[in-house]
């Protein structure tokens, strides 16, 4: 600082006189230097080299993305495959035909050469004509443009200056005359050109036709060859267009994306359109020919349902992450949110892709066993979703176990509580049974649906025993004290027969919804709908014959809100069934007795309730003044509220109580930090939490120190692993993602409502609908006695008939040979309409009005009669009063009802190919590949014959309406 003034004065940089130091002197050897030049250069060189290396590294690192590897691999494989195809196509070329054509072409050439002089004359004529046409046409166009202007001038004058319009009109009209002349010239020339072209064609046309024919023979191989060149234009070209930095100019390796304007990545409080980039690596996903390829190139396994352009969920409209979840924009394996299906796959992925779970990803992909959860985004109804067995199982479980009783769940707001009405418990059960039942429902029958509240993992220790028994006793006594025991409508007549009863139960259709004892292993899930109703095992140890008699005779008279339909049993039949059910007992159970009440334990519980809202001392005093009866009532009422019994049962005084469970409106989007994992050593994910909770609802109390009233209260349903998985799937599938209404255009409210009602009434317990159901068939050996398939019901029956049949199925007997009967479901108008619309909607059939008037001719009617006789329809079908002489099991439906029941067009389809509509039907096929086997009638004309069948059936047999001939 010696030369600079400390007060901020500018130091004048004194330029030293050059004489002092020699500028030519090597500067680095001078004393007034801090560094040597060489040293600085060396440092600069090293750091610059480093900089260069790092810059290149940066570019390469940025360029070298994972997806490029896959795209290269895919191209390589595609080239190989195309080459194989090309070789196959080349091998398939008919060489002889090609050679023959070549020879012919040569001959044609020769002929052309012979006429060379004529040909060139025609060609030059054509050229001259074209020239003339051009100039004439030009003149016409110019004139036309002039005319347009003049016409506009005239029009404008008419509007604004009418007095001077007339001369303008004249000008325009004159021009129009010219133009028409021009146009005529043009058209004349056009004709001349056309004629000359035809003339020319007569000389060279054959050669051209032959050439294109020859090209057609080798077209496939040529195209494939071109395709190979497109795929692989050579190493140098490929490398240059995909080189780092240069790859913005028409690269073949690109990030592919599907933009979905109607589907949103659901960020909080806003919706960002999804941009799915999955196809950047999954390159063959949409190509059925690639179904055998390795991941990530393989085609989607179900192109008929997903991704395919013709499927209900085409890729362009639905993308990938809508169902699979994951980060839509990601193009790197782990960041995209891939989730392994199992530990084995996880190990393989870690090895192969360096897989890790991105904890910042809100929606990682769903593993394959839970992928069906995504269906819930659109398929919001309560019914079954086609092709989603696990999802449907979960919905079955929620419906039958009534999760919505304690938890608010979307879609179940209107569904009634699943448990029996307890306001009349005294007339049905006795307290001792109820206590034992509450203590362990599954000891009574393994298929009990009542969950276990006591003796679970958090209150099962010996120190809880007296307390549990006191609680059970208090609740039971409380319920019975509140019961209004209306007398049963009727007493059971004597003489019910166990054997007859059993036969009835097994034949009239009870087994569509009920099973007796455990259902054997059912991996294909063909019998699970028989769990819809309560299992009938051990009934005799539970209720009286009187009660059962009244129940099966007319369920609604006992409980107006029941789902049980009326089987229309006679009194005697009802008595038989009651007798059979009473005979099903559980002796082991009956031998057990429930322990006596421990009053001290009861006091403890009572005190807990008294303490709320008052001090401990007040509570003690109040307790001391209470009788045992009062204690039981106080405690019972408190316990009903604490455990939320009213969620499933109607209990007097609790009709409007609010459900006690956690709300489950969007459990799949619930934030992870809102879950209490306690001290449980499981992975901290939503799925794991739900799975642990469902397997043992009290599990999160493990290692926690709590007072009894603070313990977790959710009861144990005894779900097995599969059931846990199914429920967890539903829970994780209920997410906040919104789907715009357009996405559901093909999934109408009619279909959703119908599917819901079908599930609610368990129609599929007996019938197959949309390809699923008919569970009762496993109990009926004789195929002829199976309930009808309803797969094409909408196309088959008339809506009006279906409507009335559904409401009153007892009115007419369609299939008198069946012992199983369509029960009366007491469907109201609205419900019958829902089903009618549903069946019509899934078959795309018109609803509700259809035209059954048939246009026919007398000839057709006669032919129909003949056909009917030749085909011997009445061998199996009753028709009006004609009854075939056969076993009931071998009969077919009554044709007398056809005219009012069936849709005419369906009848034709049915007769043409019954197996196509109902595979396995015993209806014979009269047409093989659409060819009539009765050539004698109507000259064997298939459509004519089908119409004749129809006409006979509807007009002659069914007395249907004949349309006006015209």
């Amino acid at each position: 600082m010696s030369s600079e003034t400390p007060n901020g004065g500018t130091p004048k940089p004194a330029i030293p006189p050059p004489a002092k130091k020699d500028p030519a002197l090597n500067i680095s050897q001078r004393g007034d230097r801090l560094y040597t030049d060489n040293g600085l250069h060396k440092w600069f060189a090293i750091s610059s080299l480093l900089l260069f290396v790092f810059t290149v590294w940066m570019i390469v690192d940025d360029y070298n993305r994972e997806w490029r590897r896959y795209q290269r691999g895919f191209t390589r494989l595609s080239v190989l495959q195309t080459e194989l195809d090309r070789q196959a196509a080349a091998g398939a070329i008919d060489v002889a035909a090609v050679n023959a054509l070549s020879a012919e072409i040569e001959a044609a050439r020769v002929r052309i050469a012979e006429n060379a002089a004529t040909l060139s004359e025609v060609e030059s004529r054509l050229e001259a004509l074209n020239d003339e046409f051009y100039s004439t046409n030009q003149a016409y166009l110019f004139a036309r443009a002039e005319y347009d202007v003049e016409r506009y001038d005239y029009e404008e004058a008419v509007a604004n200056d009418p007095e001077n319009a007339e001369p303008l009109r004249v000008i325009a009209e004159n021009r129009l005359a010219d133009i028409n002349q021009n146009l005529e010239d043009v058209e004349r020339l056009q004709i001349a050109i056309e004629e000359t072209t035809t003339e020319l064609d007569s000389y060279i046309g054959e050669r051209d036709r032959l050439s294109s024919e020859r090209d057609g023979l080798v077209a496939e191989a040529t195209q494939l060859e071109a395709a190979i060149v497109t795929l692989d234009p050579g190493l140098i070209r490929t490398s240059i267009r995909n080189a780092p930095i240069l790859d913005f100019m028409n690269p073949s390796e690109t990030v592919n994306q599907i933009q979905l304007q109607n589907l949103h990545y659901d960020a909080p409080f806003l919706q960002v359109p999804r941009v799915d980039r999955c196809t950047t690596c999954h390159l063959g996903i949409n190509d059925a020919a690639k179904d055998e390829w390795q991941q990530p190139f393989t085609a989607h396994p179900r192109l008929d349902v997903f991704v395919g352009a013709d499927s209900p969920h085409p890729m362009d409209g639905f993308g990938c992450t809508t169902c699979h979840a994951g980060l839509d924009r990601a193009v790197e394996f782990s960041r995209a949110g891939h989730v392994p299906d199992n530990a084995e796959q996880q190990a393989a992925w870690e090895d192969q892709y360096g897989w890790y779970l991105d904890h910042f990803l809100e929606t990682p992909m769903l593993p394959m066993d839970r992928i069906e959860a995504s269906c819930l985004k659109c398929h919001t109804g309560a019914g079954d979703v086609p092709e989603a067995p696990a999802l449907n199982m979960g919905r079955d479980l929620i419906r039958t176990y009534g999760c919505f009783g304690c938890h608010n769940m979307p879609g179940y707001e209107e569904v009634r509580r699943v448990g029996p009405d307890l306001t009349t418990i005294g007339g049905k059960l006795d307290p001792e049974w109820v206590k034992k039942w509450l203590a362990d429902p599954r000891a009574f029958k393994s298929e009990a649906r009542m969950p276990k509240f006591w003796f679970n993992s958090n209150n099962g220790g010996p120190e809880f025993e007296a307390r549990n028994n006191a609680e059970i006793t208090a609740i039971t006594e409380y319920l019975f004290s509140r019961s209004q025991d209306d007398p049963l409508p009727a007493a059971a007549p004597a003489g019910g027969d166990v054997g007859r009863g059993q036969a009835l139960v097994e034949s009239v259709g009870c087994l569509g919804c009920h099973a007796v004892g455990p259902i054997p292993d059912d991996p294909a899930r063909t019998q699970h709908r028989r769990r819809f109703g309560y299992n009938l095992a051990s009934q005799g140890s539970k209720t009286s014959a009187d009660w059962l008699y009244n129940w099966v005779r007319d369920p609604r008279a006992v409980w107006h809100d029941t789902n049980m339909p009326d089987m229309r049993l006679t009194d005697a039949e009802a008595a038989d069934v009651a007798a059979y059910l009473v005979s099903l007992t559980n002796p082991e159970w009956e031998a057990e007795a429930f322990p006596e009440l421990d009053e001290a334990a009861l006091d403890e519980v009572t005190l807990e309730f008294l303490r709320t809202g008052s001090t401990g001392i007040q509570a003690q005093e109040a307790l001391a003044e209470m009788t045992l009866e009062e204690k039981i009532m106080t405690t019972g009422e408190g316990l009903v509220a604490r455990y939320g019994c009213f969620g499933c049962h109607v209990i007097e005084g609790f009709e409007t109580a609010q459900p006690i469970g956690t709300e489950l409106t969007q459990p799949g989007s619930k934030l992870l930090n809102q879950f209490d994992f306690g001290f449980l050593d499981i992975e901290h994910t939503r799925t794991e939490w739900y799975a642990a909770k469902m397997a043992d609802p009290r599990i999160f109390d493990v290692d926690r120190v709590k007072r009894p009233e603070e313990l977790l209260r959710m009861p144990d349903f005894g779900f097995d692993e599969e059931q846990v998985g199914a429920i967890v799937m539903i829970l994780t599938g209920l997410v906040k993602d919104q789907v715009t209404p357009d996405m559901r255009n093909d999934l109408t409210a009619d279909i959703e409502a119908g599917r819901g009602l079908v599930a609610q009434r368990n129609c599929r317990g007996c019938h197959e609908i949309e390809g699923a159901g008919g569970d009762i068939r496993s109990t009926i050996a004789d195929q002829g006695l199976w309930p009808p398939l309803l797969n094409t019901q909408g196309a088959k029956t008339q809506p009006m008939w279906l409507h009335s049949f559904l409401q009153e199925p007892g009115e007419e007997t369609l299939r008198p040979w069946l012992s199983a009967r369509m029960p009366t479901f007491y469907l109201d108008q609205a419900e019958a309409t829902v089903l009618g619309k549903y069946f019509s909607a899934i078959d795309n059939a018109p609803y509700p009005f259809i035209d059954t008037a048939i246009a026919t001719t007398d000839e057709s009617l006669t032919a129909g009669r003949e056909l009917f006789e030749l085909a011997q329809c009445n061998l199996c079908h009753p028709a009006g009063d004609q009854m075939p002489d056969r076993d009931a099991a071998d009969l077919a439906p009554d044709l007398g009802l056809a005219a009012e029941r069936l849709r005419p067009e369906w009848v034709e389809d049915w007769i043409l190919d019954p197996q196509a509509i109902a595979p396995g039907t015993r209806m014979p096929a009269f047409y093989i590949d659409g060819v009539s086997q009765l050539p004698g009638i109507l000259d064997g004309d298939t459509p004519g014959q089908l119409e004749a069948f129809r006409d006979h059936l509807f007009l002659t047999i069914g007395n249907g309406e004949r349309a006006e001939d015209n």
Partner: protein
Amino acid sequence: METIKDIINTLTAPEILITLAAILLFVSARYRHLFYTNKVALILFPAMFVFMAISMFDEDFYLIVTKPDNVPIVGMLFLIPFFTWLSMREAVRNDKRTEEGAPLIEKEETADKVLTWPDLVYTELIAIVLLTVLLVGWSILIPAPLEESANPAATPNPSKAPWYFLGLQEMLVYFDPWLAGVVFPGLIIVGLMAIPYIDTNPKGNGYYTFKERSWEIMTFLFGFLILWVLLVILGTFLRGPNWNFFGPYEYWDTHKLEALVNVDLSDYFWVRLLGMGRPDNILVRESVGFLVVLGYFLVPPMLLAKTIFKRFYENLGPARYHIMVFLLLCMASLPIKMVLRWLFNLKYIIGIPEYFFNI
């Protein structure tokens, strides 16, 4: 191994860590000619590095240290001690030279001026290139963090301010937001800007020295290293869910509970000392607090002016002296409040939540 980890976990508790660091700072300054030497550096910094490297084997340590946004603080763990050591070493050397009557290191060359081109310009260019290399390498190896998209409904646990503000967030444990978040930051800025005007010591201008300005340097080091950098490091590495303290080798358990019950001074005075209820009138209730605070800012300046700060008072004149003491008292209030909290669970000296006025 586990025992060592447990010991370290215990030692890094805020009260112990801050106390230990303060002691280390003062002891090392006292014995600076022993501590700030090349030998110590050659042992200390490799040791720190080995310590970090070994600690990386601990899962919890690894998790918190490798969080992308924490990487700068890991860098700071080395940079700040290194530069502290470097400046103190230079200072110690200079002081020794002064004692021996030799010229300062800087002075030795002062007369010798060099041309800016190329000596300075060229070295600057090299520095730029090397820094770019560092930055590019850092960027290639560590991707910038990107978590879930913002969600006002889901508060992450813990929620932390950007790392350079974590000192303030740590201060919020001890002071109300209006103090820790507004007044103190304001005072830090004002105080920093006031330094040249308060520090009238003409010595030590333009060279490293400790002896000639030990008071200024110790105050600054205490403020910068302990009350800022250490709190940033503490806030980054040792504060977990619910702003609970977690040792470097401790799992961040969301459910960890700490007893954080604390009481106001008014409570101590009226309830515990006088055995009566707290008065209803706010001013009466908090009168003790007001007296303490007023006393804190009024009494020490006068006392100090007569005793140990006599020299300052004489040199600076009343205006500068009082500003300096006020700023010092504000700075000292943080460690004082910390100690009071640790020892007596004292929450507020003045607690008027009715008017958001808590000290």
